[in-house]
C-alpha cells in the first residue's frame, strides 16, 4: 500500500486554479521530488497535504485513510511533518524549545500534571529534552540548543526546521525547498542529511526543489507541475529529457531553437 495517495487534488483561489487535478502516489521509504517553475502550485499542494488549505476537489489518502477535512495538528499527529520555503521558526524561542514544540503531539502531560510536577510529567519532560538534544545532534547543530532560533545563521535555521519537523516523529516529511539560498557545499550537506533521514530513520520524503542537480541525484521519482497541472512524472533521467518539462522551464520556442 502506498504511504500517500493524492487523487485529483484541486485548489482554487478566486479565479486562479493553483493546483489542478493532481494525482500523486508515494511509496514508503521513497525520496520523491516535486518540481516546477515558480507559481506552479507546489507549495499550495503541500498546504493541501498538511491541512492548511482544504482542496475543492479530490481526495488525499495517508496510510490508507482520507485526511481531507482534518485539522493541520491532526494530520501532524497522523505522521506528516513539513518545513517551509521561507523559514518559519518560533524566533524568540531557543532551538531546543522549537524542537520541544515539534514534539507536542507526542507528549501527554496535562496542565495539572505540570503544576504538580507529577513523576510522569517530570519523566516525560526529561525524555523530551533528551530527544530534542539527539535530534539537534542528528541535524548537526550540537551545542546550539540554547541559542534563540532567530539568532541562528540562515543555514542552521533551515536545519533546525528539519529537526523541529522530525520531532513529531513523522512517517512522511515534506521539505519545501530545503536547499533554497544555500551555497554548493551547504546544499551538498543538506542532500546528505536527506539521505540519512531515509536510510537511518526510515522516513519517506517528498521535497520541492529548484536545484536540478539536487533533484536529479537524490530522487527516486520526480513529478513536474506547471500552472497547477502535473505535466510529467517518472525517473529523473526520463523527466530531464521530457520536452514538455524543458518547455515549461525555459519557455515555448526554446525547443525549436536548440533542436532545429
Amino acid at each position: 500500500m502506498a504511504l500517500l495517495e493524492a487523487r485529483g487534488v484541486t485548489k482554487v483561489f478566486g479565479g486562479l486554479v493553483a493546483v489542478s487535478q493532481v494525482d500523486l502516489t508515494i511509496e514508503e521509504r521513497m525520496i520523491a521530488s516535486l518540481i516546477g517553475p515558480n507559481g506552479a502550485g507546489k507549495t499550495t499542494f503541500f498546504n493541501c497535504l498538511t491541512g492548511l488549505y482544504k482542496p475543492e476537489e479530490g481526495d488525499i489518502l495517508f496510510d490508507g485513510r482520507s485526511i481531507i477535512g482534518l485539522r493541520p495538528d491532526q494530520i501532524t499527529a497522523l505522521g506528516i511533518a513539513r518545513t517551509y520555503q521561507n523559514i518559519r521558526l518560533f524566533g524568540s524561542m531557543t532551538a531546543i524549545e522549537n524542537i520541544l514544540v515539534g514534539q507536542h503531539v507526542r507528549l501527554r502531560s496535562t496542565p495539572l500534571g505540570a503544576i504538580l510536577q507529577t513523576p510522569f510529567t517530570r519523566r516525560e519532560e526529561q525524555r523530551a529534552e533528551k530527544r530534542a538534544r539527539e535530534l539537534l545532534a542528528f541535524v548537526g547543530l550540537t551545542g546550539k540548543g540554547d541559542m534563540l532560533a532567530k539568532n541562528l545563521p540562515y543555514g542552521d535555521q533551515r536545519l533546525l526546521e528539519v529537526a523541529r519537523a522530525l520531532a513529531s516523529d513523522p512517517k512522511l516529511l515534506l521539505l519545501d525547498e530545503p536547499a533554497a539560498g544555500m551555497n554548493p557545499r551547504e546544499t551538498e550537506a543538506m542532500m546528505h542529511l536527506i539521505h540519512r533521514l531515509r536510510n537511518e530513520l526510515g522516513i519517506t520524503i517528498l521535497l520541492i526543489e529548484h536545484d536540478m542537480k539536487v533533484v536529479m541525484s537524490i530522487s527516486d521519482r520526480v513529478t513536474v507541475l506547471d500552472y497547477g497541472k502535473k505535466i510529467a512524472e517518472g525517473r529523473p533521467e526520463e523527466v530531464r529529457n521530457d520536452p514538455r518539462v524543458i518547455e515549461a522551464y525555459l519557455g515555448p520556442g526554446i525547443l525549436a531553437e536548440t533542436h532545429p
Partner: protein
Amino acid sequence: MAVTTYSSTSVRFRQKTTTRWLVRGLGVLILALVAWRVVTVGLAEGYPATFWMSQLINGLVLGGVYALVALGYTLVYGILLMINFAHGDVMMIGGFTGFFALQFFMALGWLQGPAALVALALILIVAAGMFGSVLTGVTLERVAYRPLRGAPRLVPLISAIGASLFLQYSVLLIFGVSPRVYQKPALIEGGFRAGGVFVPYTGLIIFVTSLFLMLMLYLIVQRTKLGRAMRAVAEDKGTAALMGIDVDRVIVFTFILGSALAGAAGVMLGFHNTVVKFNSGFIPGLKAFTAAVLGGIGNIPGAMVGALLLGVIEAIGPSALGIPTEYKDIIAFTVLVLILIFRPSGLLGEVVSEKRA
C-alpha cells in the same frame, strides 16, 4: 545515530470539521429565535404603524450620527490596520468645543435672531466642533500613534486605550463632572407631522447634515489627489511610498478627515441627547465601531450602511423583541459579537482570503 522514537500511538479523528457546521447552525438558530420572538412578542404587542415609523426615523437619525463616527474608524483602520480606540473620545471633544461655541453665539444673540443668522451660527458651531476634534485627532496621531508605527499590533492598541482614558479623564478634570446642556435655538425646537408621523426638526437637520458630510467625504476620497493617495496607501504602504507618496502626510490627512466627521457627529449628538459629558463619547464610539465592523471595517460604504442598520436595530430592537429599553446597549454589543463571530468580514466586506502558510 540513535534517535529515540515514540511508540506510534494510533490516532483517530472525526472525519469532518464539524465546528464550522456547528457555528453555522448556531447562527441560524439565533436568527430563528430572534424572528420567533419578533413575531410572537413584538408584533403581537399591536403597536400602530406610525409607532414603528417614528422608531425607524429615530433609528435613521442616530444611524446617521454613528455613520460619521464609524467612517473615522474605518478610514484609520483601512490605512493603519489599527483600531483607534480613542476615536469616540475625539468625538466627545468635538461635542465640548461645539458646546462652547453654542454658548458664545447664544451670548452674541445670534441664536435668537433671524433664521439666516441662526443657520449661520449652527454651521459655525458644527465647524467649531470639527475644529476641536481635528486638533485632538492630529495631536493623538502625532503623540500616541506615530512613534509606534511598525510595532506589534498589541502595542498601538494599548496606547489607544491609554489615550482614550486620558482624553476622558482630562476633560473630567478640566471641565468638571457636571454635564453640559445643549440648548436648542427656539427655531429648531419642535417638528412637523408627515402622514401621522412626527418628525423633529433636529432629527431632519442631523440626518441631512450627515448625508451631506458623507457625500463630501466620498468626493474627497474618490476625486482629489490626496484621496487617491489615501487609497494607494491603504492598498500597499510600501509601494505607495515608492511611488513618491508621503505616507506620513496621508496618515495625518486621514486623521483630519476622520476627526472632522467625528467632531460634527459630536455636536449633533449633543443636540440629539441634549448633553455632553466627559464619557459621552465612549458608548457611542463603541457603537460606531460596531457599525464599522457590521459593514466591513476598512470599507467606506460599508460603514455608512452598517451604521444606519445599527441605528435602526437599536431603535426598533427593544420594542420588536419586547424587552426593556435598558437592554438597548446589550443589543448593540450582541450584534457586534455575533457579527465578529459569524461574519468577521462584515456585510459588505470581501471575504478575507484563506490564511496563507
